[in-house]
Every structure is written in structure tokens, then in C-alpha cells.
């Protein structure tokens, strides 16, 4: 299974019936494809809609219905559109159940850095700081390493997105839960050993007696 598919499929299992969910642009967006059958969640796009649906077929694009990346989207019956204050009021006010974001680094405090690399890449934080500070549950979906460099670190070296501890980190190797005691290794990807996860991780991992494989099955 492709690494990104592994991550997206595992994250999808975290979504619960009725949740309001915000998926970041890129990998997190693909989580929507792997929702378990029978689970209905409501997708928010922070540019101002609840009820976003997949890109419609060619020719049916609505000129003024787009996601936060500017791409065309659809809308479910019962969708609601609103301004940016309402959109972030929902996020900051604790009304957003889950946000799934990409990450550059996560550390032993569970803090996330995902919005800039000083001197190299300064895209701006967009809605990320509000999402990480405000969502009820923050799930980071990222590759475990980048070009061989660890991304799960003792302390983030890049500027933080928020001082808030994220709730879950899902990579192609593992599911890690940041806690008050540190990073707890909860699951391994299919076929991956605990030792392999530890070897790819700079941060100290707390390893419980049982670290099951992710229950994501074999294929889509």
C-alpha cells in the first residue's frame, strides 16, 4: 500500500458519525475517500462552507464553490455557507470535532510545527494556527521522515504552529498518541516492527505491552 494511502486510511478510522471535520489541503484531503461505510461526517472548508463534497464531474463546477486551495468542490444537500468570522468562530469556539493537518515536525510535548522553514519556505500559517489551537481533536497526518531525516523529534526546531498538544499522529509507520507523559506508540503499520518505528524516530517513544497493527485491512 502506498504510504500516503496507509496514512489516509488509518486517519479515516478516527472519524465518528456526525463529526464536523476539517481536512487540510494535500494528504489530509484524501482522508475523505476512505471513510468507513455508513459513517456520515460533515466536512468544513475554512473558506466558508460546511457540507463540502467531492469535486463534481467535469462541466458541473460551480464558479463560486471552492475549497481552501481554490479548487472546485461540490456540496451536499443541507450545506451551509458563511463568512470567515463564522468559519473560524466554529474552529476557535470548540465546535469543530476534528482537524486533520499535515506536519513538518512533531515533538515529545506533542507540539506541531507545520507552517514555515525560516529562510526557505514561508507560506504563512493560513488557518493552521487557529485549527490546531481550536479544534476539539487535532490529528497530524504526515510521513514519518523526510529524505531520511526524522520528523518526530525531542523538540521541534521549526517555529511552532501552536503550543497545544496534538491528539494523535498518524504516519506510514505508526500511530502515536502524545500524552502528558510523552509520546505513546499505539499502533504499527502492517508489517512494520516496533524497532523499525523507533529507529525512524528521534523522540523517545513510550512502548506499551501491546502495540497492534493498524486495522486498515489489506486493500481499498
Amino acid at each position, binding site marked *: 500500500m502506498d504510504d500516503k494511502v496507509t496514512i489516509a486510511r488509518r486517519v479515516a478510522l478516527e472519524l465518528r458519525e456526525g463529526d464536523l471535520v476539517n481536512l487540510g489541503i494535500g494528504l489530509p484531503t484524501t482522508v475523505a475517500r476512505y471513510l468507513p461505510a455508513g459513517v456520515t461526517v460533515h466536512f468544513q472548508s475554512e473558506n466558508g462552507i460546511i457540507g463540502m463534497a467531492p469535486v463534481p464531474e467535469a462541466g458541473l463546477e460551480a464558479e463560486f464553490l471552492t475549497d481552501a486551495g481554490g479548487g472546485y468542490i461540490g*456540496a451536499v444537500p443541507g450545506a451551509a*455557507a458563511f463568512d470567515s*468570522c463564522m468559519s473560524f468562530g466554529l*474552529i476557535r469556539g470548540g465546535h469543530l470535532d476534528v482537524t486533520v493537518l499535515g506536519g513538518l515536525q512533531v515533538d515529545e510535548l506533542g507540539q506541531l510545527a507545520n507552517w514555515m522553514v525560516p529562510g526557505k519556505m514561508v507560506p504563512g500559517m493560513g488557518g493552521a494556527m487557529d485549527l490546531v489551537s481550536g479544534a476539539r481533536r487535532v490529528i497530524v497526518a504526515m510521513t514519518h521522515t523526510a529524505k531520511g531525516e526524522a520528523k518526530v523529534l525531542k523538540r521541534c526546531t521549526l517555529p511552532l504552529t501552536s503550543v497545544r498538544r496534538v491528539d494523535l499522529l498518524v504516519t506510514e509507520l505508526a500511530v502515536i498518541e502524545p500524552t502528558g507523559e510523552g509520546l505513546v506508540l499505539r499502533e504499527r503499520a502492517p508489517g512494520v516492527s516496533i524497532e523499525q518505528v523507533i529507529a525512524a524516530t528521534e523522540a523517545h517513544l513510550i512502548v506499551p505491552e501491546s502495540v497492534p497493527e493498524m486495522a486498515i485491512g489489506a486493500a481499498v
Partner: protein
Amino acid sequence: MSKAVSVTRAVEMVPDGASLLIGGFMGVGSPHRVIAELVRQGRKDLTVIANDSARPGFGIGQLIDARLVRKLVTSHIGTNPETQRQMIAGETEVDLVPQGTLAERIRAGGFGLGGVLTPTGVGTVVAEGKRTIEVDGKVFLLEEPLKADFALLFCRRADYLGNLDYFLTARNFNPLMATAGGTVIAEPNEIVPTGVIPPDEVVTPHVLVDHFIEKGASHGR
């Protein structure tokens, strides 16, 4: 006195060095005719407050391309490499603000509030040089209000009085900016007689709107 003006006349009101709130999110819901006319008339040294700078050649990106922007207050420039290049080269000042904070700061400016107390950014580089206020045991960042000389909006409909409504995700920052511009100019997709927009569907009451762009040769798509 009608609020309808040509796009040429509207942009003539904007002096060099003006501060502009410009609606839109990745160009969706931006006043594209007004932006194109700002470029045509070469209005320069602008301070632009907007969610993003879209991309080169599109929306606010056109102002960046033409080097008309001295300072950009925005949440995201990741989609516009030219903005990033100008920032790193020191040609354009860029002030990065979390998106939800940017929205509330504009509303605070428009609604006469002294600022925004937000948890967003506490403990990060965004908090540098800013006051923190503790309320009920929680720490909040004091973010100051934002206003500008002009607000340049895109809307779905304007009625003859200047009442506005919006289209789906083209709403975004537009109704907030309508409260915070010294002069508010809306570029409507459609102009309708007064009374066509029901009172409950008006999003921006006409008293906030100074001018709207009339239909013209460049209108339509």
C-alpha cells in the same frame, strides 16, 4: 444620488499609497474588474489587507506582479511564489496573520472594538511583541483592530440602495471588510432593483456601502 460608478471612476478615487481591504480567498470572491483597473491605472505604494495573494496573474496576484503593493497583511502566500520572492528580496513587506485572527481583527475595526482576545498564536512567533491577557485562568493574545482607507468587495447582487448578498465560498472576507473600509466599493455580479433582495437575505446592509460598480463593456464572462 446613485451609488453606481464605473470601474474607471471607482479606481480614480483610490490614491497612491492607499490602504485597501480586498475580499476573496484564492481569488474566489475578489473584485477582479477593480483589481484589473488598479493595474491599468498603475496605482502604487498600496497597503493590501487580504486573506492571500492568490497566484501570479490572478486576482491580487496581479497587483503583486505589477509591483503595486508596498505592504501585504495576509494569512497565506504559499500559493504565490512571486509574493514569496518579493518578500525574501525585501521588495514587499509581508505581515503574516493567522486567518481567523485576520478575520476578527477586521471585524473589530469595523465594529468599534478595541481588539481581539484570541488563544491562537499564544506561545508562538505570532505572539512576539504583543500583549497577553489572562481571562478566567486562560491566556489570550491581544490582536489589534484593522481598518483601511478602502474596502474593495465582490458580491453576488447589489440592489439600487447598495444592499449586498454573496455566493457560497465567494462570501469569505467580503462582508467583514464591508464594515472596516473608509470608503466601501462593491463589484456586484448582478445589479437588481431595490426590494429584490429580501431583508432576511441581505448580508451587508446598504448603509455600509458607498459605491458599487455599474455594468460595463468589461462586465460578464
